[in-house]
């Protein structure tokens, strides 16, 4: 086991023992069948500038001095491959994506191990110990950690879970989709907010429409629009269809009126109509926050019929935990929860177990007030009705509380400035 911080600066000696330079960088090559890249060459910094020497021409790498196997003059220049990673230039001190922990972290050191005559990149060190090693204080660090009985200083990630984010170049993810698919959309959103423009644009293009929509719902609308800047209108329209109508409406508000109209035309008629309905209302009122994907039933249905109905329509609804009861003019007359429904006997009519006093808000109720109502009555969602008591949609608690609990994107600024945005 060795660390790259210890290898750099070590002398490289020619066949006859004269020093030709010092180690400046290590080049590692990734292979499809192996999760860890293998050191394939070293970059030697000498009087005549930098040159890359293939690993196969080194007599030893993990040693105090690095001797060459044959005269330096006879060694052909190393040819860089497409999957080569310069460990110092591209990885050390840079931010990487830890796909296991779903976070962006900084690399303090890189760990190498010898496997069957090759040197393989095993882990990246992201702990305090890595920093102390770079400063020549590793022993002090270990001693302190032991003394205070803490392993805070130690931290490493197996290369298996490392995605290098190569700056100044467009990022090429190795196996992005498989790894990313396992992440929660919130985690992807968090990662994106840590990345630079070029980096996140590549990442977003790798996601499928469903993931993209889910991820976008986790960030603020103005940032959503920013992220989608380089997507074609067709793709944006697909994403809008996949998003819940309230989120889609918020996003459309961020675009210019012309583009917003174009996008609506590209969307499926049904979805576009739902979004248009929501666009009529101010973003910060119940009308703007609500989703139209709720479940409603008629009072003359029985519990068993309702459960059958839910099986059919539940897929499209944003929330099925509350079922709203309306008359045939859509007037809201009751509500019951899934637990009410399951506890009721199969042939009981809804009228017998629904709650008739429904807490609701009006289309123009402000977000603050909705948040208070949601908190006061411990609701998961609150129905939105017009002046005649007709239901138009529901505001889910996360949308209502959004303003009070900002999403991942806002975390970056010191929080007492957050409100100034």
């Amino acid at each position, binding site marked *: 086991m060795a660390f790259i911080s210890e290898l750099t600066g070590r002398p490289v000696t020619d066949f006859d023992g004269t020093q030709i330079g010092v180690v400046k960088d290590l080049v590692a090559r990734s292979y499809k069948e192996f999760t860890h890249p293998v050191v394939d060459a070293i970059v030697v910094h000498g009087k005549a500038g930098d040159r890359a020497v293939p690993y196969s021409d080194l007599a030893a790498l993990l040693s105090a001095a690095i001797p060459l196997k044959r005269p330096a003059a006879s060694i052909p220049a190393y040819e860089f491959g497409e999957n080569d990673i310069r460990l110092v230039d591209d990885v050390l001190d840079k931010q990487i994506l830890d796909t296991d922990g779903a976070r962006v972290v*900084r690399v303090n050191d890189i760990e190498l191990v010898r496997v069957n005559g090759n040197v393989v990149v095993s882990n990246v060190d992201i702990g305090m110990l890595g*920093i102390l090693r770079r*400063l020549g204080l590793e022993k002090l660090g270990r001693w302190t950690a032991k003394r205070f009985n803490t392993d805070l200083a130690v931290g490493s990630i197996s290369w298996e879970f490392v995605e290098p984010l190569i*700056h100044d170049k467009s990022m090429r993810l190795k196996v992005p989709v498989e790894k990313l698919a396992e992440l929660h959309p919130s985690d992807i959103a968090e990662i994106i907010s840590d990345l630079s423009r070029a980096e996140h644009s590549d990442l977003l293009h790798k996601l499928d429409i469903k993931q993209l929509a889910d991820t976008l719902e986790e960030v603020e609308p103005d940032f959503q629009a920013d992220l989608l800047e380089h997507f074609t209108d067709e793709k944006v329209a697909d994403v809008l269809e996949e998003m819940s109508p309230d989120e889609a409406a918020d996003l459309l508000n961020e675009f210019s009126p012309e583009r917003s109209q174009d996008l609506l035309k590209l969307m499926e008629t049904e979805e576009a109509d739902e979004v248009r309905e929501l666009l009529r209302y101010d973003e910060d009122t119940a009308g703007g926050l609500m989703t139209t994907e709720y479940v409603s039933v008629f009072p003359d249905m029985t519990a068993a019929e309702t459960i059958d109905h839910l099986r059919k329509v539940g897929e499209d609804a944003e929330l099925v935990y509350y079922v709203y009861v309306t008359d045939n003019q859509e007037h809201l007359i009751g509500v019951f929860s899934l637990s009410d429904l399951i506890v009721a006997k199969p042939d009981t009519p809804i009228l017998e177990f629904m709650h008739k006093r429904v807490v609701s808000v009006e289309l123009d109720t402000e977000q603050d007030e909705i948040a208070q109502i949601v908190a006061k009555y411990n609701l998961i969602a609150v129905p939105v009705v017009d002046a005649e008591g007709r239901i138009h949609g529901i505001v889910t608690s996360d949308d209502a509380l959004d303003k009070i609990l900002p999403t991942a994107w806002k975390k*970056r600024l010191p929080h007492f400035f957050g409100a100034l*945005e």
Partner: protein
Amino acid sequence: MMEKLILMRDRWAATPWVRQAVVLFSVFGPATIAAMADNDAGGVATYSIAGATLGYPILFLLFIITPLLGITQEMGMRLTLVTRRGLADLIREKYGVKVSLFIFLGLFIANLGTITTEVSAIRTVSGMLHIPVWPFVVIMLLIAFAFITKGNYKLTQSIMLIVSLFYLTYIISAAKANPDWGLAFSNLFYPHGVVWTQQYLVSYLVIGMGVLGTTITPWGQFFISSFAFDKKIDKDTLKYSQFETYWGAFLTDFFSFFMIVATASTLFVRGIVLTSGEQAAEAIRPFAGDLAGTLFAIGILAAAFMGLVIVPLSTAYAFSEFFGLSGSLDSDYQKSKTFYILFIVQLVAAASITAIPGISLFHFAIATQTLNAMILPLVFFYLIKLTSSKKIMGEHANNGFQKNFTTIASVFIVIASAFTVIAVVFKW
């Protein structure tokens, strides 16, 4: 019908002047804060002593400091807009751990000095308002700690407001004190109107460094990037943020100008050597009359509190950028634990330093702000290098003027620092 409504709603927001106003204000909020925070308690103390000791000729420095402040802040902003990385991030990525540690230590020491000045101002206020010192200091530190960790926008706003009103009292006082405006304004362009004794020259050098260090701060260079992070980069944003940083710089020094004129026209002309808060308060007597002492106490308290909140925060954020704090510690809890420890260390250390007997706010302010100024060239060196790099900045790299002006200024600061050290050590 529906489509018409959409168009109407958006058209209003799409009106050019509305859009511009929105962009401008969204950019202005944070920049005004940064500009205001530059004039913290250390700033007020430094400008007071500058005006009282040197009179109008020190105004000449503002003429050079203002563009330097604007240009360096703009560099920091542009750097983050283009790379979406903070100054500390980039120093770490391009120059490694050792350079990072070196600069962080410099920043830490400078910030600790500034925080100590704020605590020292709180002690001065307790004396002026006849409140027992230690209970008052401890309470203020506890409030500051709670404020840093919890945050409160309303309170932030109120404190900013008090501080701005406090600055306004200087403008009115300066006007009412019947200063020699001709002399004041001409001194902006060349220093004159005093006898240039050796003692005056040495004071000018040392206090001038203090004025520089309190106006352009190392922490300010790291702090500016946190405002640029979330912004979109396009030509317009770049233009606006450029305008915004220049305006912020102007605003900062606009207030500094009147603070110096007010103290110069009340204290300097009467030959009062500034040693106490009561004397410093004389500068706003033309406006506040007998309330001057109380008003000064409240104003400088608010200014001190502001510094006490922002400066430790900038240390913590720079630490996390330099050393990837969030990465080395797994949970948010661990991260905030390290943040808390950093805050507590800074606040307690600052309070302990002020306990050393014989430290006067005004002399201490000059010392710490001079230290700030001496660390500046170090920060500028990397800032200029990074922002001049075509590889990093592409088409947004520095132009010749930006690069040359800041480089020459840095060289001058290094020379002035050397002279200041010599002057202090050999007691010129």
